[in-house]
């Protein structure tokens, strides 16, 4: 995390992050959209910028999580404001409709590249 609070780096080196969520399979497409929309609002409210979410659709999990064998995968790139990461991760952790999540920082050279995928969408 950035050490000094108010030395915000200028545009030149703003980090891009990527979040991947597994949303519970009980929801339908529209509810998944809403869930993702909620996180986009959080990102934007805390001063980040959320990219278009990439919906992989319903996929089989490689192993069972909470007695569920599949889930909706959503991948989204974003830039973070000061509080974004803390807030986003906190909300993700307490959200019951998100099975699993992961936020990674993308290497500067890799950001905004088209994402390979998705394949094998199992209903």
């Amino acid at each position, binding site marked *: 995390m950035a050490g000094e609070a108010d030395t915000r780096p200028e545009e030149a080196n703003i980090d891009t992050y990527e979040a*991947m969520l*597994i949303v519970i399979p009980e929801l339908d497409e529209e509810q998944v959209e809403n869930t993702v929309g909620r996180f986009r609002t959080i990102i934007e409210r805390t001063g980040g910028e959320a990219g278009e979410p990439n919906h992989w659709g319903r996929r089989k999990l*490689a192993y069972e999580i909470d007695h569920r064998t599949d*889930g909706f*995968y959503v991948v989204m790139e974003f830039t973070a404001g000061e509080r974004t990461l803390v807030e986003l991760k906190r909300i993700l952790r307490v959200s019951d409709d998100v099975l*699993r999540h992961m936020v990674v920082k993308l*290497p500067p050279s890799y950001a905004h590249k088209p994402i*390979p*995928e998705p394949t094998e969408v199992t209903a």
Partner: protein
Amino acid sequence: MGRRRNGPPRGGRPMKSKPCVFCKENVAYADYKDYNMLRRFISDRGKVRARRVTGLCPQHQREAASAIKRAREMALLPYVVGR
């Protein structure tokens, strides 16, 4: 560390050093989302393959291993196969 690198091994024919596939394909970032690519580096048990098997250079082996671990966390790859 005093390990031998590319010199001729004791006995047998000289080692042919195979270039690391990541270096060859100019992979900038081992992406955990590209789990089908990572499949090449795990055994059919789901374990990370050793460098002598994958032929990756030390840097890329490390990157591939962490990508595999991330993919496992997101249930894209299994921790164990056939249990």
